[in-house]
């Protein structure tokens, strides 16, 4: 098999079919950019989880005078409640899971509240007594939060035990849904890319039917006849996926690292390393899909 001859054949095919080849490149480019974006979002969720879950605490809110009657029939939690909780946290059963814990009383809670809601009118109406006294618990492993939640939920004098991860989970589920949406769009566009490749191959098979007919007559192997067509498809797919990889890298450099990371300095964002690991996967996916599409099109339109 002579590479020069095969390359020449691809050149002829691509030239004859240029607008179709360009559209294949563009569609694979855009669809794989969506795939890459979905991948980046997943990595972003992963790195945010690592970062925030480690910081997430479990809050044990004690009853106040204004707590709902059915949960806190005795009203404001007594000192006894506080001591019970403290001794439970210090006990040998829970101690191994805890990193540290601290207690925030009404006055301190009020101070924090006033600071956090400085510009909000609600700050004016809140009194210290309305704010829960709280045990803030840091865990060695945030995944063990349910142990704390279970140990304290339902104890008298406790209004609520809240795993802060549940707030984060909402954010993550929003991110998750958007990455799924990106994947769904990508899947649709990949489908159209596959159909386009198949149409392109069919067109070039029709345009070159004379050559193909002669190749068959003189006994060229199927492989030899089909290879230029498959390579034509793969070439377009690979160029499209390289463009998509470039777009992903640029997205990380200019949008994530250049813009987001500066606006939100305390958040960990996907890095260039993450983008680079996506790149070979995208190229592989592009080559594989276009090769398969070309191959199946050829099976249909180029018989022995």
């Amino acid at each position, binding site marked *: 098999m002579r590479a020069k001859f095969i390359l020449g054949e691809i050149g002829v095919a691509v030239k004859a079919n240029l607008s179709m080849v360009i559209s294949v490149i563009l569609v694979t480019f855009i669809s794989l950019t969506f795939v890459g974006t979905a991948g980046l979002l997943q990595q972003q969720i992963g790195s945010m989880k690592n970062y925030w879950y480690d910081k997430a605490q479990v809050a044990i809110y004690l009853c106040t005078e204004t707590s709902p009657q059915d949960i806190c029939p005795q009203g404001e939690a007594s000192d006894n409640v506080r001591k019970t909780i403290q001794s439970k946290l210090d006990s040998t059963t829970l101690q191994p899971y805890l990193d540290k814990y601290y207690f925030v009383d009404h006055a301190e809670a009020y101070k924090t509240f006033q600071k956090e809601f400085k510009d909000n009118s609600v700050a004016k109406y809140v009194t210290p007594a309305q704010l829960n006294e709280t045990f803030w618990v840091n865990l060695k492993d945030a995944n063990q939060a349910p142990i704390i939640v279970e140990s304290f939920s339902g104890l008298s004098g406790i209004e609520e035990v809240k795993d802060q991860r549940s707030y984060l989970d909402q954010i993550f589920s929003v991110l998750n849904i958007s990455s799924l949406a990106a994947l769904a769009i990508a899947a649709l566009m990949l489908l159209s890319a596959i159909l386009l490749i198949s149409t392109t191959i069919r067109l070039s098979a029709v345009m070159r039917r004379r050559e193909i007919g002669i190749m068959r007559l003189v*006994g*060229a192997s*199927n492989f030899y006849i089909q290879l230029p067509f498959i390579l034509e498809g793969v070439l377009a797919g690979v160029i499209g996926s390289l463009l998509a990889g470039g777009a992903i890298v640029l997205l990380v450099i200019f949008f994530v690292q250049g813009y987001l990371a500066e606006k939100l300095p305390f958040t960990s964002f996907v890095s260039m390393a993450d983008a680079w690991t996506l790149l070979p996967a995208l190229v592989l996916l592009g080559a594989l899909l276009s090769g398969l599409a070309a191959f199946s099109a050829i099976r249909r339109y180029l018989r022995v």
Partner: protein
Amino acid sequence: MISLSQVSKQYKDAPRAALMDINLEVDKGEFVFLVGASGSGKSSLLRMILREDVPSSGTIHVLGENLIGIPNRRVPHFRRNLGVVFQDFRLLPNKTAAQNVAFSLEVIGKSSGFISEAVPDVLRLVGLEEKASSLPSQLSGGEQQRVALARAIVNKPAILLADEPTGNLDPNTSEGIMALLERINLAGTTILMATHDKSIVDRSRKRVIQLSEGKIVRDESSSGYGASR
């Protein structure tokens, strides 16, 4: 060399079978004319021998290959032992005579060294060494058919199938092509030629197989186009 036994071909939606109970033996070195009206089954028969199509029933052996059982991937290799020419030449219009011949060698993976020797040789054999770099559009019909013949025989096939090779040519030019075919046959290539050309068949006095409505109605050696001797 070529052996057909009880071969029938019924195409889908066709009112009658294209071929019916064909039994045929062709030996090495023979020159056989296939005659008969249009639609009598000549081209179908050639397609079967080339394994472009498989019969509905019966067996075909060509060059020791059982064409019914041959796996698809072996078909290309099988075809390398056959040369084919057609009425419409089937040359690539954007390639020169030499490139057309070379193309058929390139696509079966011959080395460029082999190609650069074989192509001028075969063009000389068909009398076109002067026209090697002419495009088909610059060649006469007879010359184009010579290029097609050169392409068909450049790989030294054991069998040459010719489907109305003189159908588009005037009598004088046809003579020249016939003379060339006879030389190729003398060099040992078995030739099976479908034709309507009465004068050529009558003059050649070779084996004639006549088909009518898919059946062999006559198979005579040293015969003519029409009835028996």
